[in-house]
């Protein structure tokens, strides 16, 4: 693309074109060049992200029957979703319970990935002094990110299954008599797999914030008599905050919309916000699926807005 763009931008300057020297080159304006360069990416986002989002909102207000979309205004997608919610008060209806469970999963995964991510990043940024080692160890953390998520999920089966390594190990030591059932296809395995898959999204931004911290600030704190803990709380954490917020946004939005990890690791038994959408699509109830997508989007957006109050994302990249 750039080649084309630049050639178009400077038609008179291509070497070998005989007229170039005589005629004054007709230069395109810089803003036009910017458009040519950025335009293709913008078009992709327009066609495959922005317009689809608009369709999600529109279709969420359409009607449907057993097998097709009916393009007529209807609130059925939403009323079906919230069915019985008023009648059952003060008890939570299905959708309320599902979102509560999703938020609970989200919170657990967030807390654990933040803890692990922070200390892994801290180790890499402050304790690994040589650049080569820093690169190597960062790469070690990154490589699994380039491999398949499903494989990293099913990888837990031989470890956590009824006859898996953990159970047989515990049986041998005599700690338990019967295999523990809640290790696999349970909330436990869902949280474990989500932490396994997505701690990376915490490590990278926090590490980025931490390597930018001026080491002399830490020395200054030390010289002024701060303990290690005081330095951590009053110097390092505030300066790493942008990374912490960006990492948190990544992890929370991924878990909020997840349906694959929750499906595979939960044995398709655990309900979650993303899973509702999948179920509705499989039942060909597209307006209901779209309505759920709009609700999920609104909640995700709310969370991000609250978090981005804390930090200006654009400045940090």
């Amino acid at each position, binding site marked *: *693309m*750039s*080649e084309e763009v*630049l*050639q178009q*931008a400077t038609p008179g*300057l*291509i*070497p070998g074109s005989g007229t170039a020297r005589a005629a004054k080159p007709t230069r395109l304006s*810089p*803003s036009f060049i*910017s458009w*040519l*360069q*950025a335009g*293709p*990416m913008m078009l*992709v*986002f327009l066609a*495959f*992200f*922005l*317009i689809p*989002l608009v*369709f999600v909102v529109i279709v969420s207000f359409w009607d449907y029957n057993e097998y097709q*979309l009916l393009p007529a205004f209807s609130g059925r997608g939403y009323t079906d979703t919230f069915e019985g919610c008023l009648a059952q008060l003060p008890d939570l209806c299905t959708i309320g319970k599902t979102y509560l469970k999703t938020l609970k999963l989200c919170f657990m995964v967030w807390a654990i990935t933040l803890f*692990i991510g922070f200390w*892994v990043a801290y*180790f890499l940024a402050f*304790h690994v002094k040589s650049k080569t080692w820093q690169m190597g160890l960062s790469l070690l*953390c990154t490589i*699994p990110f*380039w*491999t*398949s*998520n*499903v*494989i990293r999920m*099913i*990888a837990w*089966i*031989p470890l956590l299954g009824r006859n*898996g390594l953990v159970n047989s190990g515990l049986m041998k030591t005599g700690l338990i008599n019967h295999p523990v059932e809640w290790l696999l296809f349970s909330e436990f395995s869902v949280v474990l797999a989500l932490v*396994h898959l997505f*701690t990376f999204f915490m490590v990278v931004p926090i590490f980025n914030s931490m390597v930018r911290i001026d080491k002399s600030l830490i020395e200054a704190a030390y010289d002024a008599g701060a303990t*290690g803990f005081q330095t951590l709380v009053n110097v390092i954490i505030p300066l790493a905050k942008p990374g912490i917020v960006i990492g948190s*946004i990544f992890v929370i939005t991924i878990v*909020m*919309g*997840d*349906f*694959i990890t929750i499906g595979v690791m939960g044995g398709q038994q655990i309900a979650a916000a*993303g899973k509702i959408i999948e179920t509705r*699509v499989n039942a060909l109830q597209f307006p209901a699926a*779209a309505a759920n*997508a709009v609700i*999920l989007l609104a909640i*995700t957006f709310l969370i*991000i807005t609250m978090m981005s109050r804390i930090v200006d994302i654009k400045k940090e*990249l």
Partner: protein
Amino acid sequence: MREGRPRSFYVLAIFFAAYVLFLYGPMIAIYVLSFQGPQGGLTFPMNGVSTFWIAKLFQGTGIVDLGAAFRRSLLLGLVVMVLTVVLSVAAGMAFRRKFKAQSILFYSAIASLIVPSIITSLGISLEFRIIDDLIKAHWNENFETSMGLLTSGLGAHLTWTLPFGLLIMFAIFNRFDPRLEEAARDLGATPWQTFRHVVLPIILPSVIGIGLFGFTLSWDELARSSQAIGAVNTLPLDLQGLTTTVTNPDIYALGTVISAVSFTVISLALGTIHVLNKRQAAKGSDAGKGLV
């Protein structure tokens, strides 16, 4: 004399090592288990060692039509890789100047990264369904569908890979010295020559990194493909389908084969980056050599 390392170093080093073990341990377990003997099951202990299950995949008598899905995923991955590299480098160049839609493009990319994949996927599938309905209603009643690997599937993957490409480009140009380009211009280079002979060689290692992200993210993509890929399946989709039904080590064998491709691509890319960096270090700069 050098000061010894603080105690916190050792605590955190052990923590880090445990994290790495946590990352790699389970994966290694299934790579080992995919070499189960023909009688072997889904868990340890190993029941003999063989390549029975891997061979079974390639015979096509196994659980999925591996060959077809493999070719589809590879084709899609390569197309996504090329487009991600080209579009990201072009847009990255654009971001070095101010232009009008700058913040729209930036926020689209960030939003595309963090809006839950299932929503993007659903949106694309709705978009294509509506296009199909329009074509059927107005032009061709027998029209099947415009959804497919290289239409809706490709678009879905690009919404995932392009934000990464763009962010990497930002990181590259953050530490790029614009004086190098000014020097080239002063020496009479055209904008294209400046890009081709000055900018591109310097950023090439990172551009290969973008390609690596483009291919691997597409090769393993699942959530966005799920609703948007149309009638055919990619390898990860086939693999996911197996998780609920399979009782044989087939699934581990398939996982091992998919990972082998990933690791080959990762090594190739990292190797190339390493060689390019070495070369740049060896003959990149003549500063201070007195060549005027």
